[in-house]
C-alpha cells in the first residue's frame, strides 16, 4: 500500500496508530500515572482525595498482613513456576515427536488457555472437591486418601497451583515446541555417533539450546504469578483462614470493598517495584545459564 512520502507519510502512520495510542493513553498510561498520585492520598472514591504523603507506604510495610500476603504469593510462585516449567517442557518434547493425531493433541492441550478463568475455576472447585472430586476419586483408586484441597489451609494453595498449571501449560508448551523445532538435528546425530544416551542428549543439547526460551518463560511466568487473582478469587476467595490471600486479592479488596483507593494504589506500586527488582535480578543472572548461540 502506498501511504505517501515524508511529512504526509508520517501523518498517515500517526492516523492509523491513533486509536491504539489513544486507547493506551486514556485507559492505561494516564490511570497508571494517576494511581501513583493516588497512592499518596486517602481517596475513598466518594469524597475528594486528601494528600497524606508516605502514610500509605508506612502502614503497608509495617503491617503483618502485607508480609503474610507476600509469603502466600511466594508460596504460589515456588510451587507453580518449577512445576509449570517441567510440565510444559515435557509436554513440548512429547508433542515434538511425529505420531498420528499429534495435531489433535496440540489443540487439546491448548484449549484450557482459551477457556475463561471463571468457568475454569468453577469446574476445578468440583474437580478438587473433598468427597466427590475427580482428583480424590482417582487418588482413591491407587489407595491414597485425598486431602480436602481448597477447604484446608495447607492444601488450598497447591490446589490453586494445579488448576493454574492446567490452564497455562498449553501456552508455554507451545513456546517450547517452537524452540525445540528450531534445534538443528545434526547435533543429535553427532551425539549419537559418539554414543550419547537419551538423557545426555537432553541434558547437553536440548536444555542449553532451549535456554533462551526457558529464560523467557521463567520471567513471564513469575511476573504473571505475582498477579495471580481470578482463580484465587473464585476458587477460595482468599480462604480458608486467609491461607490463599495473595497481593492482587488484597489490592482488589482494599480498592473495591474497603473504599481505600489510596492504600490499594500504594499496594499496586509496591507490587510493581517488587516485580521490577526481581526481573532485573533475573536479567543479570541469565549470563550464568542462558546460552544464545544455537
Amino acid at each position: 500500500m502506498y501511504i505517501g512520502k515524508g511529512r504526509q507519510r508520517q501523518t498517515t502512520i500517526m492516523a492509523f496508530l491513533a486509536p491504539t495510542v489513544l486507547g493506551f493513553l486514556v485507559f492505561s498510561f494516564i490511570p497508571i500515572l494517576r494511581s501513583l498520585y493516588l497512592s499518596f492520598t486517602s481517596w475513598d472514591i466518594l469524597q475528594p482525595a486528601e494528600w497524606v504523603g508516605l502514610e500509605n507506604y508506612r502502614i503497608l510495610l509495617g503491617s503483618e498482613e502485607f508480609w503474610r500476603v507476600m509469603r502466600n504469593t511466594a508460596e504460589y510462585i515456588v510451587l507453580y513456576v518449577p512445576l509449570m516449567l517441567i510440565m510444559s517442557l515435557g509436554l513440548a518434547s512429547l508433542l515434538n515427536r511425529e505420531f498420528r493425531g499429534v495435531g489433535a493433541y496440540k489443540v487439546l492441550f491448548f484449549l484450557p488457555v482459551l477457556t475463561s478463568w471463571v468457568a475454569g475455576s468453577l469446574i476445578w472447585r468440583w474437580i478438587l472437591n473433598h468427597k466427590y472430586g475427580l482428583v480424590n476419586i482417582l487418588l482413591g483408586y491407587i489407595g491414597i486418601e485425598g486431602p480436602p484441597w481448597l477447604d484446608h489451609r495447607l492444601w488450598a494453595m497447591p490446589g490453586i497451583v494445579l488448576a493454574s498449571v492446567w490452564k497455562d501449560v498449553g501456552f508455554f508448551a507451545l513456546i517450547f515446541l517452537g524452540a525445540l523445532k528450531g534445534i538443528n538435528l545434526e547435533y543429535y546425530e553427532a551425539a549419537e555417533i559418539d554414543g550419547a544416551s537419551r538423557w545426555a542428549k537432553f541434558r547437553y543439547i536440548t536444555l542449553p539450546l532451549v535456554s533462551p526460551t526457558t529464560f523467557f518463560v521463567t520471567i513471564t511466568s513469575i511476573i504473571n504469578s505475582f498477579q495471580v487473582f481470578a482463580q484465587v478469587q473464585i476458587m477460595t476467595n482468599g480462604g480458608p483462614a486467609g491461607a490463599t490471600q495473595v497481593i492482587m486479592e488484597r489490592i482488589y479488596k482494599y480498592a473495591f470493598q474497603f473504599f481505600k483507593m489510596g492504600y490499594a494504589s500504594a499496594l499496586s506500586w509496591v507490587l510493581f517495584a517488587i516485580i521490577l527488582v526481581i526481573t532485573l535480578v533475573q536479567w543479570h543472572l541469565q549470563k550464568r545459564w542462558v546460552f544464545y548461540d544455537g
Partner: protein
Amino acid sequence: MSRRRLSLAVVCAVLVVLCTVPALGAQKVTITFGNFSAGSDNEATLAAMKAAFEKANPDIEVKLHSTGYGEYFRLLQTQIAGGTAPDCYELNYENFVAFAAKNALVDLGPLAKTTGVSFSGYDANALDAFKYNGKQFGVPGSYSVVLLFYNKDLFDQAKIPYPNDDWTWNDVIEAGKKIRALGDDIFGIYQPVQFWEFYKTIAQNGGSLFNGDQTKFTVNSPENIEALQYMVDKVIKHNIQPTEAQKSGQGDWDIFAAGKVGMIVTGNWAFTFMKDAAKCRWDVAVEPGNTQKGCHFFSNGYVINESSKKQEAALRWITWLSSSQESSMLRVEAGWETPPVSDESVINAYVAQRPPENRKAVFDSLKYLVTPPVIEQFNEMAAIVDLQLEKAREGEKTPQQALDDAQRELEQKIKL
C-alpha cells in the same frame, strides 16, 4: 463545509429537538432507580410494582437499573465518582451508614415536607434504622430476620421435642448430639462461623464489638470469647456441625433441604427456596440465646442521590414502593422478604402464608433485634474479624488468641 451539508446538519438538529418535545409537553419526569435485591427471583415483582406506580402517577416514569448483588456496590461507587449515579437507589443497611457519612445522600426529612409525603405507614423500628445522626437519610424497603430452621423428621427420629422459644445454647448442643448419633453423614446443626453470626452470637451472651459509646473495640471480652468457644465447639469438640472438609463445598441450604442436618441458622429469605426444595417436614423457631436472646435484623433501604435533580419525584417513588399497601401486598405474595410497614392487613397476610407453620416467629424475633454494628469502615472490620474467626474454626488458634489478634488489628486499622 458546503452549503448543502450545512443545511443537512440543520435539518438533523431540528429533528433531534423535535423528538424530545413531546416528552416536555406532557411534563413527564423520568427517574432512574438502581437496585439489587430483586435479583432474578423477584424481577417480575419489581416490574409489576413499577407498572402499578406509573399507573397511579402518570407524571413519573421509572427506569429500573437492576444489577446483581456481587457487582452492585462496585458499579454504584463508580457511578457516583463519575457523576452518573441513579436518582434513587437501594442500599443495604451496612453500606447505608458509609454512604450517609460520606455525604452522598439527601436528607429526606425536609424533602418530605416540600413534597407532601409522610413516613407514618412504616414500622417504627425499621424506619429508625435508616436515620444517621438523627436525620432520615433513607427509608426501609424490606427487612428480614434470622431464625432457627429445624427438620421435624430428624427430631422425631431422635425422639426429642421440637425447639421452642425458651431454648438456649445448651439445648442446641444436646439436641445436636442426639441427631448426630443418627448417622455418620447426619449432622445436628449448621451455623456458619463468620462475622455476621459472630456479632449476633456475642449479643446473645451479653457481649458487643464496642464499648457503650462506640469509642473502643471490646472484641476480646470474656463474653465474646465464651460465645466464640460455643461456635467453635460445635464444629471441633462435639462435631455436631460439619467441618468445612466434611461439608465439602455444599451449601447449608442444600444439606438442610436434603435432610442431612437437623437445624440451620438462616434468614426468612430462605422460605421460598425451602418451600420447593426441602425433602423433609420443617418449621422455624425464634433463635436460642444464652444469657439473653438476640435475633438478626437486616434491612435494605432506599435513598436519594445527593446530586439528583429530580428529588421530589424520586421520593414519591421510593416511599410508594416501600410503604404503599399495593406494593406491600405484591411483596408478600411473591415472598420477597418482609414489607417494613405497620399496616395490620399486610402483616396478617404475611403470617397466614405457609410454609412454615410458625411464620409468627418472624415478628416475635423483632423483640430481640440485633442490628449490624455499622461503622464507616464496616467491610474492612468484617474482613479482619472473619479471618480470625476462620483461624479459630480451623483450630489454628484458640478463641482467646483469635480474638486477641482481631482486637489488636482492629485497633490499628479501624477508626471509630
